[in-house]
C-alpha cells in the first residue's frame, strides 16, 4: 500500500483489527468447508431460537418467521446462483427467472393432480435442476460468444419468452391459472410432515441446501475453473491467449447458474403448491440481480447475506412500516402502501449502489477494485473481441488494432 496515510489516522486498533481480519480470513480459507458448516449451523440455531424471543416474536409468531426464512432461502439460493454467473464469470443474465420457472414447472409436472404423477421430492430436486441446466446450456451455447450487451439482451428475451410459452401453451401448462395442488414433499426422517402451516421443515431443508451450495461454490471459486472465470472477467483476450476456452468456461458458469435456479424453482413449487407464469416475470430476475449487487457482487457469502436481508426487509419490515405508520396516523406516509413501492425501491437501491458502492455491502476482496477499474486498455490497443466460430461479433475493431498498436510505441 503505497498511499500516504497520515500517521494520526492509522491507529493501533485499526491495525490490530486488520490483522485479526486477515488471520480470520486465512483460517477460513484453510478450512473452508468446516467454516461454512459451522457458520451455517450457528445461523440455523439463531434462526430457530430468535423468532421465539422478543423482539422478533412481537412482530409475528415463530411460525410465520420460519416461513419467511424458508422463502428468503429461495432467494438466497437464487442470488448465489446468479452470483456465479454475474459475479464470478461476469456474464449479465437478465432472464434468470426463466430457469426458476423451468425448475418449478418440472416439479409441478412430477407432483400434481394435473399430471397425475407423484414422484419423490429429493430426486426431483436433482432432476429439476438438471433440466434447468439443459436449458441453460441450450441458451448459452449459441449466445455466450456474444458481447456482454448482446448476451444481456438475449437472456432478457429468453426470460420473457419462457413465461410467455408457459402462458400460451394452455393445454400443457394450464395457462394463466397455472398448475395448482402440487403435492408437498414426503415426510423426512426426524422432521415429520411438510405442512403449509408449519414451514419449519422447509426452512431446515433450505438451510441444508444453501450450506451445500456454499461449500460447492467456494470450492469452484478456488479451483482452476474459478481462476479461469476471474481471468475472463479481467481480460478475456488474455485469458484466451493463455489457453482458456472462454466459451466453454462461460457456458459452465451459465449452466451452473441455471442449475441453481432450477433447484430453487423445484423447492419453491413444492412450498407454494402452485406454479403460474406470473410468478416468473422480469421483476423476479431484477430482484435477484439487485440482491446480488446489494450483497456484494462476486462474494459468495455476501450475496447470501444480502439476499436474506433484502428479502426480510421486503416481506417483514415493509409490512411493519405500514402497520406502524397507520397506527400513528402519520399524515402523508400513511397514505402510502409501502409494499407497492418495493420494486421501485429495489431499482433505486440498485442504481444508487452502482453509483456509489458497486462492490456491495459485503465486498469481495478482488471484485472491489476490479469493478471500478479503468478498462481503457481493453479496446484501445491490440485487438478485437475473441472471435466466435461463425464470424465477427459486433463491435470488432480490427481496423484500429494495427495502427494504434504500433503507433503509440
Amino acid at each position, binding site marked *: 500500500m503505497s498511499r500516504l496515510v497520515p500517521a494520526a489516522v492509522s491507529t493501533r486498533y485499526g491495525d490490530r483489527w486488520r490483522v485479526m481480519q486477515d488471520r480470520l480470513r486465512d483460517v477460513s480459507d484453510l478450512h473452508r468447508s468446516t467454516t461454512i458448516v459451522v457458520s451455517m449451523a450457528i445461523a440455523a440455531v439463531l434462526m430457530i431460537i430468535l423468532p421465539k424471543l422478543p423482539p422478533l416474536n412481537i412482530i409475528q409468531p415463530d411460525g410465520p418467521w420460519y416461513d419467511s426464512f424458508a422463502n428468503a432461502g429461495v432467494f438466497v439460493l437464487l442470488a448465489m446462483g446468479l452470483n456465479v454467473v*454475474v459475479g464470478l464469470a*461476469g456474464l*449479465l443474465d*437478465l432472464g434468470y427467472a426463466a430457469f426458476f420457472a423451468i425448475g418449478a414447472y418440472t416439479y409441478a409436472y412430477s407432483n400434481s393432480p394435473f399430471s397425475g404423477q407423484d414422484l419423490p421430492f429429493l430426486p426431483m430436486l436433482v432432476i429439476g435442476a438438471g433440466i434447468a441446466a439443459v436449458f441453460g446450456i441450450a441458451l448459452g451455447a*449459441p*449466445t455466450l460468444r*456474444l*458481447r*456482454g*450487451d*448482446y448476451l*444481456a*439482451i*438475449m437472456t*432478457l*428475451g*429468453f426470460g*420473457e*419468452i419462457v413465461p*410467455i*410459452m408457459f402462458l*400460451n401453451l394452455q393445454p400443457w401448462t394450464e395457462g394463466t391459472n397455472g398448475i395448482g395442488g402440487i403435492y408437498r414433499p414426503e415426510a423426512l426422517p426426524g422432521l415429520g410432515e411438510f405442512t403449509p402451516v408449519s414451514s419449519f421443515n422447509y426452512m431446515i431443508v433450505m438451510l441444508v441446501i444453501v450450506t451445500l451450495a456454499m461449500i460447492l461454490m467456494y470450492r469452484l471459486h478456488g479451483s482452476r475453473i474459478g481462476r479461469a472465470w476471474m481471468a475472463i472477467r479481467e481480460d478475456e483476450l488474455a485469458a484466451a491467449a493463455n489457453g482458456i476456452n472462454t466459451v466453454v468456461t462461460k457456458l459452465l458458469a451459465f449452466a451452473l447458474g441455471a442449475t441453481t435456479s432450477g433447484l430453487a424453482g423445484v423447492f419453491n413449487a413444492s412450498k407454494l403448491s402452485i406454479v403460474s407464469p406470473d410468478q416468473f416475470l*422480469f421483476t423476479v430476475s*431484477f430482484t435477484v*440481480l*439487485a440482491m446480488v*449487487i446489494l450483497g456484494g457482487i462476486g462474494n459468495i457469502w455476501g450475496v447470501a447475506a444480502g439476499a436474506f436481508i433484502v428479502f426480510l426487509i421486503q416481506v417483514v419490515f415493509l409490512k411493519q412500516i405500514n402497520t406502524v405508520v397507520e397506527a400513528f396516523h402519520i399524515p402523508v406516509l400513511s397514505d402510502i402502501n409501502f409494499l*407497492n*413501492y418495493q*420494486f*421501485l425501491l*429495489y*431499482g*433505486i437501491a*440498485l*442504481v444508487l449502489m*452502482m*453509483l456509489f458502492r*458497486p462492490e456491495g455491502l459485503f465486498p469481495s476482496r478482488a471484485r472491489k477494485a*476490479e*469493478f*471500478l*477499474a*479503468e*478498462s*481503457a486498455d481493453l479496446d*484501445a490497443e491490440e485487438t478485437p473481441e475473441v472471435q466466435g466460430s*461463425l*464470424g*465477427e*461479433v*459486433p*463491435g*470488432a*475493431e*480490427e*481496423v*484500429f488494432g494495427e495502427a494504434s498498436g504500433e503507433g503509440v510505441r
Partner: protein
Amino acid sequence: MTASAIAKPARGQANRLVRITAVMGIALVAYIVLLWVGLTIVNGFTFERAFPVALQQTINALSIGAIYALIALGYTMVYGIIELINFAHGDVFMIGAFLAVVLTGGIFGQTGAQTNVPFLILLLVASLAFVMPLTGLLNMSIERVFYRPFRHASRLAPLITAVGVSFILQNVALVVAGSGDRGAPQIFSTDWEIPLAGAQISILSIFIFGLAITLMAALQLFVSRTRLGRAMRATAQDQQAASLMGVDLNQTIALTFLLGGALAGAAGVVWGLRFGFVRQDLGFNAGLKAFTSAVLGGIGNINGAALGGFIIGFIENFASALGFSRWSEFLVFMILTLVLIFRPTGILGQQLGDRA
C-alpha cells in the same frame, strides 16, 4: 471543380432516392401479395375478401413499423456512439406515451376523436412539441446522471445500471398511474379512412408513417449536413480521435441521447393515438422489438434502424394478421437469436467501424 463534378453528387443523391423508393414500393407490393396469399390459405378467406384485408393490414404494418423504427433509432445511435445498450430507452418511449396522454387528456381534456381539423392539428403539434423535448431531456439526463460515471469503467457496470434505470422508470409509472391499461385519447379519429380497392385505408396510419419518415429524414440531414451531426459520426467511429480533433465528447453524446429520446417521445405520442392505451410495460415490450430492429438492420447504422423497424413491424403484422399475435414476441426473439448468431452486424451493418 467543374460544374458537372458538383452536379454529380446531387444527381447521385437523387438516383439513390429513386432507387430506395422503388425498392420500398416493390417490397410493399410483395408484402401485400404475401399477406393476400397467407390470408387465403391459412385463414380461409376468399380471394376477393382477402385482398382488401391484406391492403389494410399493410397500411397497419407501415404505422407499427414506423413506431418501431423511431424507437430503434434511439437504440442504434446510442450504441453507435458509446457502445452501450440503453436499456431505459424503451421506457423513455413509454414515458412519452404517458406524457402525451397527460397533455391531451389531462390538460386539454380530450377524450375522443377531434373533428375540428385545425384544432386537431394544433393538438398534434402541441403534443409533439410538448413531449419530444421532455423525453429528449429525460434521455439526456439519464446519460448524464447514470451512464457518464461509467464511461471508462468495465462493460458490466453501466449495463447493470441501465437495467436499473429502466426498472425505476417502469415502476415510477406503475406507482403513479397504476397497473393495467390507461386509456389514451385517440384524438385523431381512427374512423377517417380512404376507400381504396375495397379496403378502408386509415388516414391515421398514413399520418404516422409520414411523420416518421419526416423525422427520420430530418435526422439524416442533421447527421450528414450539420457540424454537430458530423461530430456525432466522428465520435461514433473513433472517440479518441474525435476528441483530439476538438469534438466535445460530453456535448456530442448528450446530443445523441437528446435526439434519440425526442424520437422515442414522438413514437410515444403516436402510440397513444394509434392504440388508444398506455401501460407501464409498453417500454419493455416495444423496447425489445425496437432493439431487435436495430440489430437486424445493423446496429450503429441509422438507415439500418429504420429498415429493421419496418421489417419487424411487418413481420409482427404478418403474424397477427394470420392470427398468431400471441407468438409475436417469440417470433421477434427468434429473429434476434438468428441475427446474432448468423449475421451479428445486421443487414446494413459493416464490419469495420463504419457507423452512423
